[in-house]
C-alpha cells in the first residue's frame, strides 16, 4: 500500500478561485470543518485574470435596471438553453453578493454620489458591471482570500486532485498529491465542492492559464456525475494576436465598453454590416449613436461592437478569412480614436484601462492611447460543465457540488461578459451553504482502499515508463493544435469526426507517456497526469458538438448554419456508460414557469 497523509473534512472545496473561496467562506461560517485544495498558490487562480467587472443589477448608474432585465438579458444571451432557475437566482442575488464584497473590504470604482460605479458591457441592456478599472478579478479574489483566511478554513496549496472517492453511490472525498514534494494525500469528506474552473488548455489559442485542464469536469464525469452543454465553448472576440508568445491573452471587453471600435484593414467598422435580428432593436444605427451610448447617454443604443461575444468573434473570423485582417491575422481594435471626443484622452484611457495599457506597452511595444491594437478570437470560457440543481448546486452524484465555470446551466449557449464573476459569488455561496447542510445530515463515508490504490498506480505509471515513454508536452501540443483546428469557432461534421479519431490515438499515446526524475515539483509528471482530463473534456466537447446539428450561441456549424427551433428544446447531457464509453444524449429543457415567461415577454 502506498504511503499518504490524511486530512479529513466535513466539506472539501477543490479550487480556490472566486467560486471555491466563496463556497469555503459560506461553509466555514456554518460551523463545519472546511478544507480547500488548490493547484496554485492561494490568490493566483484564474479569477485574477478577469478584467471587465461583475454584473449585478444594482441600478446605481441607470435606475431602470432590475433583476428582471438582468434575467432576460442572460436568457437572451444564452439563447434560452439556460437553466432558468439559475438565471433567476443569479439575477436576484448578484446585487447582495457584490455589496457583501464591499463589506469585506473590496473597493470598487465610485459614482459621483459615492456609490459603486457600473459600466456597459456586451449583451447587458444597462450599465451593470461593478468594476475596479480593468482588474476586477484581482480585487475580488484578494477580497475573498483576505476574508477567507480568518474563517478557519485550511488551505492545501499546490495540490492536484487525481480522483474523487465514492462510497455506496455518494461522495466520500478526494485523493491527490502535493506538487511541491510529490506526496500523496487523502482528503476524506462528507461533501465535496468542485470549483476547478474551465478547460481552455485543450485549445491552442486561449486566454486561460495552465491550470485550466478541465480537472473538475473530468473528475465529476469519471465519478459518475453528468455533464451538460459541453458543446458551448466561448471564444472571446478579442485576444492579443502578436507577438506569438502572448497570442490569446485577453483584451478586455471593457475597451469596447469605453468606446473602442473594431476596424478591418480597409478602416471600416465592419460590425455595422451584420446585426442579428434578435438584437436589431437594441443596437445603434450610427457610429455617433454608438459613441453616445458608451458615454452614458440613456437614450442611445449600444454600438454593434458590444453585441454578444459569439457573434463578434465570428465576424472577426470572417473579416480575417476574407483577407481584410490586420498584418498578424487579426483585426484592429482602436481606443486611441476617442481623442476626437475627449480632451486629454491619453490620461483618460490610462485611468480607465490601466492593465491594458501596460500589457500592450510591455508585451507588444504598442501605446494604445496612440495606435490601434491587433486582436483576434481566443478560447476563453466553458459554458458547459457539471449538471447541477439550480438551488443547491448539487450534481447528479449525491454529496458532489459544483460552482463557477465547472458548473453549468446559468449561461446556456453563450455567456455574457460580467456574468462569470457574479456566477462565482452567487453560486459559490449556494454550493458552500448546501454542501455544509449535506455534510451535517450525513454520516462519515467509508474509504475504499482499492480506489486509492488504483489512483496511486495510475499516477506512478509515467515514472515506470521513464524517459523512453512518450513526451507528455508533445502530446499536449498536438491535442491543442487539433482541437483548435477541428473543433474551434467554425465546426463541421467531417472535421469533428476526424477530431474523435485523433483524440483516440492521443489517448493511446498518453497511456504510454513517460517522465524522468523524481516526484518533487516535476512539471513533466504534472503534464502527463493532466493529459487524461484534457482528453476526456475534448471528447465530450466534440461529441456534444457533433450531436447538436444546428448553430446557436457559441456553437457555429458550417454544415448547419441556422438555428433550429427544435434544438432549442434540448440540452445535451454526457455521462459515462457501464463499460466506460461516453454517452451523449438529448435532455428536454423543463418549461419556463409562467411568471418568468412573462418577464421575458415584457423585456423583448
Amino acid at each position, binding site marked *: 500500500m502506498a504511503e499518504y497523509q490524511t486530512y479529513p473534512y466535513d466539506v472539501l472545496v477543490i479550487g480556490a478561485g472566486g467560486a471555491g473561496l466563496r463556497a469555503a467562506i459560506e461553509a466555514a461560517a456554518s460551523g463545519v470543518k472546511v478544507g480547500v485544495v488548490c493547484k*496554485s*498558490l*492561494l490568490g*493566483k487562480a*484564474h479569477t*485574477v*485574470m478577469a478584467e471587465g467587472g461583475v454584473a449585478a443589477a444594482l441600478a446605481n448608474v441607470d435606475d431602470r435596471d432590475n433583476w428582471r432585465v438582468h434575467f432576460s438579458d442572460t436568457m437572451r444571451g444564452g439563447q434560452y438553453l439556460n437553466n432558468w432557475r439559475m438565471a433567476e437566482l443569479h439575477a436576484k442575488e448578484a446585487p447582495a453578493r457584490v*455589496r457583501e464584497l*464591499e*463589506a*469585506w*473590504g473590496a*473597493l*470598487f*470604482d*465610485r459614482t459621483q*454620489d*459615492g*456609490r459603486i460605479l457600473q459600466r456597459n458591457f456586451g449583451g447587458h441592456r444597462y450599465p451593470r458591471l461593478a468594476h475596479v478599472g480593468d*482588474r476586477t478579478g*484581482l*480585487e475580488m479574489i*484578494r477580497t475573498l482570500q*483576505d*476574508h477567507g*483566511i*480568518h474563517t478557519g478554513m485550511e*488551505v492545501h*496549496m499546490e495540490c492536484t486532485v487525481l480522483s474523487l472517492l465514492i462510497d455506496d453511490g455518494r461522495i466520500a472525498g478526494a485523493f491527490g498529491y502535493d506538487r*511541491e514534494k510529490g506526496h500523496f494525500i487523502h482528503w476524506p469528506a462528507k461533501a465535496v465542492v468542485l470549483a476547478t474552473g474551465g478547460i481552455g488548455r485543450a485549445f491552442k489559442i486561449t486566454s486561460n*492559464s*495552465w491550470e485550466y485542464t478541465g480537472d473538475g469536469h473530468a473528475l465529476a464525469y469519471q465519478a459518475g456525475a453528468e455533464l451538460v452543454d459541453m458543446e458551448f465553448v466561448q471564444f472571446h472576440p478579442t485576444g492579443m494576436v*502578436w*507577438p*506569438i*508568445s*502572448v497570442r490569446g*491573452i*485577453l483584451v478586455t471587453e471593457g475597451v469596447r465598453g469605453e468606446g473602442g471600435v473594431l476596424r478591418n484593414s480597409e478602416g471600416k467598422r465592419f460590425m455595422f454590416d451584420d446585426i442579428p435580428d434578435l438584437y436589431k432593436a437594441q443596437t445603434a444605427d450610427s457610429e455617433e449613436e454608438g459613441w453616445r451610448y458608451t458615454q452614458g447617454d440613456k437614450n442611445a443604443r449600444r454600438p454593434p461592437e458590444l453585441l454578444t461575444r459569439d457573434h463578434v468573434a465570428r465576424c472577426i473570423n470572417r473579416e480575417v478569412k476574407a483577407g481584410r485582417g490586420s498584418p498578424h491575422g487579426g483585426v484592429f481594435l482602436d481606443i486611441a480614436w476617442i481623442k476626437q471626443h475627449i480632451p486629454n484622452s491619453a490620461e483618460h484611457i490610462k485611468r480607465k484601462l490601466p492593465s491594458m495599457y*501596460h*500589457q500592450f506597452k*510591455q*508585451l*507588444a*511595444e504598442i501605446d494604445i492611447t496612440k495606435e490601434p491594437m491587433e486582436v483576434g478570437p481566443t478560447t476563453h470560457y466553458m459554458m458547459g460543465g457539471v449538471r447541477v440543481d439550480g438551488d443547491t448546486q448539487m450534481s447528479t452524484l449525491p454529496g458532489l457540488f459544483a460552482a463557477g465555470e465547472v458548473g453549468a446551466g446559468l449561461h446556456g449557449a453563450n455567456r455574457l461578459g460580467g456574468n462569470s464573476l457574479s456566477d462565482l459569488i452567487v453560486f459559490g455561496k449556494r454550493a458552500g451553504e448546501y454542501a455544509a447542510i449535506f455534510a451535517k445530515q450525513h454520516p462519515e463515508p467509508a474509504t475504499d482502499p482499492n480506489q486509492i490504490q488504483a489512483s496511486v498506480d495510475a499516477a506512478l505509471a509515467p515514472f515506470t515508463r521513464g*524517459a523512453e515513454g512518450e*513526451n*507528455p*508536452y*508533445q502530446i499536449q*501540443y498536438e491535442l491543442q493544435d487539433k482541437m483548435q483546428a477541428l473543433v474551434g469557432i467554425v465546426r463541421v461534421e467531417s472535421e469533428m469526426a476526424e477530431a474523435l479519431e485523433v483524440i483516440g490515438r492521443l489517448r493511446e499515446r498518453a497511456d504510454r507517456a513517460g*517522465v*524522468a526524475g523524481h516526484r*518533487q*515539483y*516535476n*512539471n*513533466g*509528471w504534472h*503534464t502527463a497526469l493532466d493529459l487524461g482530463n484534457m482528453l476526456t473534456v475534448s471528447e465530450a466537447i466534440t461529441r456534444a458538438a457533433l450531436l447538436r446539428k444546428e448553430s446557436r450561441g457559441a456553437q457555429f456549424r458550417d454544415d448547419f448554419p441556422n438555428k433550429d427551433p427544435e434544438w432549442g428544446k434540448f440540452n445535451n447531457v454526457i455521462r459515462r456508460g457501464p463499460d466506460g464509453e461516453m454517452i451523449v444524449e438529448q435532455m428536454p429543457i423543463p418549461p419556463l414557469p409562467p411568471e418568468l415567461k412573462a418577464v421575458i415577454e415584457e423585456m423583448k
Partner: protein
Amino acid sequence: MPDLPQSAQALFRIWRGDSNGGAFQDYKTPIDSGMVVLDAVHRIQAEQAPDLAVRWNCKAGKCGSCSAEINGMPRLMCMTRLSELNLDMPVLIEPMHAFPSIRDLVTDVSWNFRVKKTIKRFQPRLPDEPDGTWRMQQVDVDRVQEFRKCIECFLCQDVCHVLREHHKHEEFIGPRFLVYAAALEMHPLDTVDRVPDLKKKHNIGYCNITTCCRQVCPESITITENAIIPLKERVVDAFFDPLKKFFHIL
C-alpha cells in the same frame, strides 16, 4: 520592433537544484521576436529538460507566480522580454534568494501566507445608508486602490535587505505586508488601529527606506513613499510625541 533572424538562438544559464544545493546548467534554445524569458524556459522544459521546475500561471503579469532573478534582477519571467536583455551573454536565471529553495526556480514562499494572517483583518464602520451600503468618493478610494494592485509576486520581499541579508523573517513582515497594512489603515471604511502592532510586532522600524522594493515592483506601486513612510509617520505620532515625552520627564 526589429524581427530577429529565423535561426536566432540564445544561451540560458539556469540554476538547477534543491534545498541541498545545486549548480547552473546551460541550455541553448531558438528564440523568436516578442519572446519573454518564461517562453524560453517553457521551450527548454518541453524540449530538453522536462523535469525543470518553474512556477507560473497567467503569463500576463497578473498573478505574480513566476518571480525569479534574471541577470541578478528580481523580475517576473512572463514580463521580461528577451529583446531588452543582452543576448550576447548567457541569460542568468535564478530562483528568488530570500526564500528557501524547493527545486530549480521554485521557492517556498509559504512564510508570506503565514505573515498575512498575523495582520488584523478589515473591520468596516457601520453602513452609511439604511440599505446597508456605504458612500465613498473616488479620490479617497484611489489612494488605496494603488496598494490593492499588488499581485503578491513577493519580489519586494526578495529584494528587501532585512529579509534577504539579515533573515529577520520572524520579526519583520517585509514591504509586501507593510503595503497590505497601509491598504487597511488607509481604507476609507476601516475602523481597526494597527499602529501599535506595526511598531511592536511587525517592526516597521527595521525598514530604512532604501527603496529597493519600490524599484522592483512590477505594478509600480510607490511602496516606500506612499505606503511605508506614511505608516512610519503614524507610528511616530502615536509613540514619539515630543510634548508627551517632555511632560513625562517633568
